[in-house]
């Protein structure tokens, strides 16, 4: 698409995006909830979104599927109050719905597989019902305008203006960063166009391209995004991305996952933890010099290295005790 068409497309999407925003009041409610069994909290939602990402990645779905799934999830959660125990079902339903829209039929994982791998407690029929509920509540239409839509457009625009754009600006990297942001509920409050632009600017800043920066400003003016809003979200994005990129490894939450092995392997797992029956025999320093009969066999000249013959006491005293005594008396 040429530059003019791209800009037009941009405008169209910009006008549409408000329809696909989750209700802000709903999101705030979730953010303010403390850890509690009856309501969804931000931490709860974030953890679930990370699970959705794991499944997306495992089944080879595209980032588009993920972004759409999160969009559906947030919109639903902001609208309907659900109990935390249903969150798993809702999130996997959203993922499956998104996958049906975005992915090719042959690449779709069957719901049973999704449930099995995700170690979910509900059945495929539960999933089906939940999907219907979500679709109904959200007046689900196939296409949603998400931050990825904008990111994609921005990227194309940038490429169309710069000849070597492809080497400088990697769409994959931007997608990964978007994914990192979406794992935090606060970013669902941002307008997708603004979020995408913040990400773009962040990356441009990192690669230090003046040309790209100009294009970004151009886009901002075209969409009439205010400086204040852009600054606000750029700061938040920057903080999130610096967390994401830190080389420190965090301790994974180990207890959540179930490790199921086959019966035979399970039988063999702890067969080694045998308590020894024989009591320890402590080694004495003067072992070998106690008995005179056994001395001749043992006293061969030993070298300190590992290449000396077995059975020689390489590190014992050079003169055995009884010989030393003789020497002293001599």
């Amino acid at each position, binding site marked *: 698409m040429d530059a003019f068409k791209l800009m037009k497309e941009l405008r169209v999407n910009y006008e549409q995006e408000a329809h696909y925003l989750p209700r802000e009041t709903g999101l705030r409610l979730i953010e303010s909830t403390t850890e509690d069994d009856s309501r969804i909290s931000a931490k709860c939602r974030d953890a679930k979104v990370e699970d959705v990402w794991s499944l997306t990645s*495992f089944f080879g779905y595209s980032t588009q599927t993920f972004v759409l799934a999160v969009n559906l999830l947030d919109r639903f959660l902001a609208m309907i109050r659900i109990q935390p125990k249903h969150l798993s079902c809702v999130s996997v339903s959203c993922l499956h719905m998104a996958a049906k829209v975005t992915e090719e039929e042959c690449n779709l994982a069957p719901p049973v597989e999704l449930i099995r791998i995700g170690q979910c407690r509900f059945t495929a029929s539960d999933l089906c019902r939940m999907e219907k509920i979500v679709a109904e509540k959200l007046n689900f239409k196939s296409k949603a305008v998400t931050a990825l839509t904008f990111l994609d457009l921005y990227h194309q625009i940038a490429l169309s203006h710069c000849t070597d754009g492809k080497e400088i600006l990697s769409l994959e990297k931007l997608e990964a960063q978007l994914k990192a942001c979406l794992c935090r509920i606060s970013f669902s409050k941002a307008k997708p166009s603004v979020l995408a632009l913040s990400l773009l600017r962040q990356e441009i800043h990192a690669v230090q391209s003046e040309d790209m920066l100009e294009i970004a400003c151009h886009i901002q003016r075209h969409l009439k995004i205010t400086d204040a809003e852009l600054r606000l979200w750029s700061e938040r994005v920057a903080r999130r991305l610096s967390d994401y990129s830190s080389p420190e490894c965090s301790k994974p939450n180990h207890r959540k996952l179930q490790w199921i092995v086959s019966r035979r392997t399970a039988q063999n797992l702890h067969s080694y933890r045998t308590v020894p029956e024989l009591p*320890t025999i402590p080694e004495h320093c003067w072992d070998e010099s106690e008995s005179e009969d056994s001395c001749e066999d043992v006293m061969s000249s030993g070298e300190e290295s590992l290449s000396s013959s077995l059975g020689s006491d390489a590190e014992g005293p050079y003169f055995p005790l009884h010989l030393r005594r003789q020497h002293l008396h001599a």
Partner: protein
Amino acid sequence: METTKLPPSSPSSPTTSFSVPSAEKVDGFPRRSMRRARQRRSHSSSQFRYQSSQVELTPLPLLKDAPVAELHDLFCKKLQQCCVLFDFLDCVADLKGKEIKRAALNELVESVATSRGVLIEPLYPEAIKMISVNIFRTLPPSENPEFDPEEDEPTLEASWPHLQLVYEFFLRFLESPDFQPSMAKRYVDQKFVLQLLELFDSEDPREREYLKTILHRVYGKLLGLRAYIRKQINNIFLRFIYETEHFNGVAELLEILGSIINGFALPLKAEHKQFLVRVLIPLHTAKSLSIFHAQLAYCVVQFMEKDATVTEYIIRGLLKYWPKTCTQKEVMFLGEIEEILDVIEPSQFIRVQEPLFRQIAACISSPHFQVAERALYFWNNEYILSLIEENCQVILPLVFATLYRVSKEHWNQTIVSLIYNVLKTFMEMNSKLFDDLTASYKVEKQKEMKRERERADLWRGLEEHQDRRMQMLTEAARNQRNLQERGERGDPPSPSSLQTAHSDQPEPKPSGASSSSGAGESAT
């Protein structure tokens, strides 16, 4: 030599009447040992010194009834009585004598176990002599030449009723509070110990159990023999590994060694480290590893706990001897690696992590599900997980590609689930690294697919080219034939057709050539 007496069920009796209980069948087939049992013949006694003219034993008075002055003398006499050997393969011979000896042995055991002041100096040589006479014998060759220690039932020692009491006596003798090592060492010497060690090859597990405890006590109390014992055990193991691959007592000897290793003084002597590298690690290559693997692993781990610097030797050694075709052994090796990792120090872990995780990655991609499962289960171990987490940058790239690939290809669903767990764990550890690796993996995949497409295109192009050539050749041949036929019929040869015939020689020109020949023909 006594005549071989056939047991009641002679081998010639029809075996159809003998039905094998289902418990004795493995996979529907009767075990090998059952088949052999039906054909069992009695063979000659393991005690070749069986005297044909039997010494008649007269029962002596009981020890507990003897007055103190006569006690030691009586004790000695009983010991001497017990030096007479009996044939247990013949169940009915010398029943009286056998009972007298059994009772005497029992009394001796009781006496040594309970009374004080029994063990005086003159008794030591007599006691050791009695023990030697009874237990030291050449072990018979195995009744079952293909004895598989894992599958088959062992051949038990026939004279166990007496032998067991002799061993019991020996053990109590060693453990008695009156036992004097300085006295005993004159009689329990190197020759004695060597013969004792040879007995560990007995097929009877009860005998080996006694021997194990006895040798353990001997090693503990007779300090002068320790080096000799260690040396002889080394010899046995080395012979086992490199020459015979047969020895029934490896597990028991390893158990004793475990308690010895546990008691090593620090710093570890070079001799002990050599033993680890030259004997313990190569012991992993034995075919019958499953019999003694638990004890071997214990010894190895004990070494590590004593001196962390041996870790690298151990792990590199295991990697060197990693089983390539035996999956049962591979599972054992993986179990041992997990035990080793359980006690490894982080500084040592860093030195071995790369080759180790390459091997683990190879195990994950093994088509044998037990191997893959065992390897993946490492990620369920908290301590190992913490080690991986600290070195995530190094380890994740090594296993990532394998994990991804196997998750798509493996036939076993449990494995696929476990891989998801591992991938998810990594994702939580370091998202960015994970995303980077995912991206580069995808790029690699694209490149690979592109290469595949190009290769396919190339072959297709070559095939098409070949087809076209064949087409042209057949046409050229047809033209030749036509011309020849015309010549035979006497048609005037046309110069133009002759020329075109020549120009039809195989030269890969596009269809222009054939059209010109066609045009040429119609012209004539």
